[in-house]
């Protein structure tokens, strides 16, 4: 409570008057003889208590009357805000934070909640008085202050609010409220307030109030909540879409996982439509229980290689922006693998050292509908084969190779091919180091130099195991989870000691610390060296259960390594990727609405070329193009955060410090009056005078009430 004329409060000393009169009249009785006090005593006992209460009550009424007179003269104001406690001529500094997160995009009674919120913000800005300073901010993820400093320019602030679009991003309360508090904190000479205009979704506020103790916010700053919208409408959303396959091959049935969330109190059915590159392919009706999330799997067949746009759509409702979800998928041709096996000796049966690799890549030995098309040839048989037709070439226990093949392999590798080299008893380290590394200069094939053989595969006295497995590498990442198998259980009885090149990655070591598997990026391709055999002559790994997933993951990682994979992101998140200098020429970003933006590539410190873009505010399918739009480098999808679909509101009582400023058009006082009341408080002078009048009537009635009636 504050007072316009606080000096009048000195009049409160006037309460001494009734107290004095009360005490004075108590102490001046008249002395009188009486025959016997017998009856008087009995009567006094009966009357004394009421008399005392009456006198005290009268005295209290008179004290209150004096207080009310004094208060009326001092013009008291009462308000729950800190501003109301300040002097009325103190200027205000306030910040209007407008929630423009995706949840604000729903409609209430046919009116956009966001438009209502924007109108509220303009009404609050209208209350700016001469001398007041203000700024506006947006609440989304990440939120920001549109003007980082407070300004007197009311029109600019109103214009910026009028032009604010609805964001497809989530809600990060801290990113806008904390900077606002920081901005107002030093302005102690002002009446400070932060108006938060929001739909108060629990999913946005709960993490904020759990992490930040709002009760500790400086008491001089008013936090005012302006709720918009009504109770949360029923909402059904597509909150997840993903392809459940490590690599998508054209012509293969791929399971798609579609996640539907039903944020309503009743079970609802939704017709999910799957579109590929804008063409409706599949439809399925799914029922989701009340307040539940349900995953469903739909099989889809991709026919077009390269980047594909995948979209899952349900019918529209009060919140239209979460009824569609996008996914960018790259579809590959079936992977062709060439295994170059040792030549068969004359008169000897065909060499079968490739059998475990072939079997692992094509266990059912299917001619088609298999992810990997494996061909096994001797080195001599590869003379007329174009290596560029194969995604991966495997060298298995080769003694010597023809120089022409070595040259072709080097070119293949540098142009983006992938080479896996398995060693064995035919390998001569000196020849390998000289012909596959030293003589090729920068086009060398092997990621490590080969030295002596370790162990004895004949006696098998000592079995080595793989340790320090790099489960962060795609080839071994599948083994990171418990229960997915452990390649370290395989035993290697003999292997070559190698020394990895400086830029090579060591994927695993042997149990005594020597390198086991080494990989190096060579040109646009990759070369992997396995220091032991591809069959069971030096190791039992090919007959262990982890052999097959290792080979599958290795090949998939090799064929996808050169692709620019960005995945799905949230609106507003930056996209950054490294590209080749060739791809970096004339790059473009195509947004979901068809708008094309030029992407500027930058060369980093180590010569890496990369680009970054923040133009991801729209939800949908984005394409990154090269060569002036002729070539699609990659694509990615931007989807709204799933939590924004949950429109349930938080109870304001759970949010400390916030004072509500609720308003319904046509009901109660206007926003202008409510803002004014919050800032200046309630004028209690009228109420005090009314109370005084009422009190005077009560006092008069009570003081003149016949004693007899009370006693009786």
């Amino acid at each position, binding site marked *: 409570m504050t007072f316009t004329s606080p000096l009048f409060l000195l009049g409160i000393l006037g309460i001494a008057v009734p107290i004095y009169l009360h005490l004075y009249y108590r102490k001046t009785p008249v002395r009188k003889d009486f025959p016997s*006090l017998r*009856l008087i005593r009995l009567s006094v006992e009966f009357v004394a208590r009421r008399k005392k209460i009456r006198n005290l009550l009268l005295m209290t009424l008179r004290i209150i009357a004096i207080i009310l007179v004094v208060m009326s003269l001092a013009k008291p104001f009462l308000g729950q805000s800190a501003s109301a406690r300040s002097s009325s001529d103190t200027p205000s500094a306030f910040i209007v934070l407008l929630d423009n997160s995706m949840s604000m995009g729903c409609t209430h009674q046919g009116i956009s909640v966001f438009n209502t919120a924007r109108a509220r913000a303009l009404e609050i800005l209208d209350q700016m008085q001469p001398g007041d300073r203000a700024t506006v901010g947006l609440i989304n993820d990440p939120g920001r202050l549109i003007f980082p400093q407070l300004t007197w320019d009311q029109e600019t602030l109103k214009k910026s609010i009028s032009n604010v679009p609805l964001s497809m991003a989530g809600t990060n309360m801290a990113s806008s409220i904390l900077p606002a508090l920081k901005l107002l904190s030093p302005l102690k000479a002002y009446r400070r307030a932060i108006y938060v205009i929001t739909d108060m979704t629990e999913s946005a506020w709960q993490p904020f109030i759990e992490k930040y103790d709002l009760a500790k916010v400086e008491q001089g700053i008013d936090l005012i909540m302006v709720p918009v919208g009504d109770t949360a409408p029923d909402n059904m959303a597509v909150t997840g879409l993903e392809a459940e396959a490590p690599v998508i091959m054209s012509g293969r049935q791929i399971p798609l996982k579609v996640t539907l969330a039903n944020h309503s109190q009743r079970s609802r059915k939704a017709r999910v439509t799957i579109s590929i590159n804008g063409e409706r392919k599949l439809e399925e009706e799914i029922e989701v229980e009340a307040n539940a999330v349900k995953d469903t799997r739909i099989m889809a067949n991709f026919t077009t290689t390269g980047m594909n746009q995948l979209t899952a759509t349900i019918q529209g409702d009060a919140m239209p922006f979460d009824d569609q979800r996008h996914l960018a998928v790259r579809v590959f041709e079936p992977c062709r693998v060439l295994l170059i096996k040792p030549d068969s000796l004359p008169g000897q049966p065909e060499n079968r050292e490739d059998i475990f690799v072939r079997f692992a890549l094509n266990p059912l030995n299917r001619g088609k509908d298999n992810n990997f098309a494996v061909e096994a040839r001797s080195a001599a048989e590869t003379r007329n084969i174009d290596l560029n037709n194969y995604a991966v070439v495997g060298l298995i226990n080769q003694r010597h190779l023809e120089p022409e093949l070595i040259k072709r392999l080097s070119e293949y590798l540098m142009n983006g091919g992938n080479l896996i080299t398995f060693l064995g008893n035919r390998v001569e380290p000196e020849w390998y180091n000289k012909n596959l590394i030293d003589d090729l200069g920068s086009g060398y094939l092997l990621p490590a130099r080969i030295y002596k053989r370790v162990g004895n595969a004949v006696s098998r006295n000592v079995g080595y195991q793989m340790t320090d497995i790099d489960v962060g590498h795609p080839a071994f990442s599948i083994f990171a989870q418990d229960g997915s198998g452990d390649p370290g259980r395989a035993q290697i009885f003999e292997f070559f000691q190698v020394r990895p090149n400086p830029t090579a990655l060591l994927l695993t070591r042997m149990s005594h610390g020597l390198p086991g598997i080494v990989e190096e990026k060579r040109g646009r391709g990759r070369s992997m060296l396995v220091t032991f055999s591809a069959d069971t002559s030096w190791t039992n790994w090919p007959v262990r259960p982890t052999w097959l997933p290792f080979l599958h993951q290795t090949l998939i990682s090799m064929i996808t390594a050169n692709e620019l994979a960005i995945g799905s992101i949230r609106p507003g998140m930056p996209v950054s990727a490294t590209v080749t200098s060739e791809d970096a020429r004339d790059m473009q970003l195509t947004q979901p609405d068809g708008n094309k933006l030029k992407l500027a590539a930058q060369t980093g410190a180590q010569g890496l070329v990369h680009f970054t873009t923040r133009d991801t505010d729209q939800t949908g399918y984005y394409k990154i193009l090269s060569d002036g739009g002729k070539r699609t480098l990659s694509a990615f999808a931007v989807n709204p955060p799933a939590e924004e679909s949950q429109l349930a509101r938080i109870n304001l009582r759970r949010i400390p410090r916030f004072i509500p400023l609720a308003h319904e058009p046509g009901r109660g006082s206007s926003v202008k009056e409510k803002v004014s009341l919050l800032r200046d408080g309630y004028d209690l002078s009228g109420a005090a005078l009314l109370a005084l009048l009422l009190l005077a009537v009560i006092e008069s009635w009570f003081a003149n009430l016949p004693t007899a009636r009370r006693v009786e």
Partner: protein
Amino acid sequence: MEKTRRLSRFLDPKLLASLSSMEIRARTVVEGMVEGLHKSPFKGFNVEFSEYRQYVPGDPLKDIDWKVYGRTDKFYIKEHEEETNLSGYLVMDTSGSMSYKGQGSLSKIDYASTLAASLAYLMLKQQDSVGLVTFANGLRRMIRPRTGMAHLKAVCSELEATRASEVTNIGASLDLVGQSMKKRGIFILFSDLMDNAEVIIQKLRQLRTRRHEIVLFHVLDRDEISFPFDDTTIFHDLEDESEIVTDAFQLRTEYLRRVKHLMNTFKSALRKSGIDYLIADTSMPLEANLRSFFSRRQAVSAR
């Protein structure tokens, strides 16, 4: 208006107060009013035959003369002329509370003494014997009943000499009085009854069971009946000297209710026991009290 006119015929208490001698006061009071009396108001125990009259239904059977019935075969009632040869005991409360003197000219004890002397004079004039007992916390003085007008002087002297003081113990005092009264008679008590009402009623009933006629004058000042105080007052008890501070205005209704309740209690309880209960308001003329006393006695005699 009629009552006022009638009372105006009586002596003004102020005038009485100016008479210093109790005996003269008594004579003045009685002679001013006795002309209207034709019969003794006191019904004696020793009676002389007056006449026979025929029995009518409703007469007590004990009054039928059976000897006459044996002779005449008819019921006759034997009537007696009253004889005013009885013993009267004037019992005077002389406790401190009786010294109260309000707006009137006589204190309670003066008023009661004048009343007692008047009755003594009347009874002695009718050849009855009169005694006097004064008490407060116990018996103070006792004058045995005697006849003859010469005895009036002794009674009046004693009444004049008595000063109100001490606290009241009516119950114990009545016990002592009862023990000292050997002969049945009329027992006239003057008191403001500032003691336990139940004890007083119980003791008076005990006296009544000994076949004494009992008349009680409840002597009250006008202040005690109307409680005309308005201010916050320190009330001083004339008996035990205690004091109490209270707002008299607020107390009045409750006090008056209790006084009225007390008088009603005495009235109903004593009259059930055949005891005459009369209020002696000191602001009223003495003759008015005597008149009401006589009217009451005549009503009793008629029964």
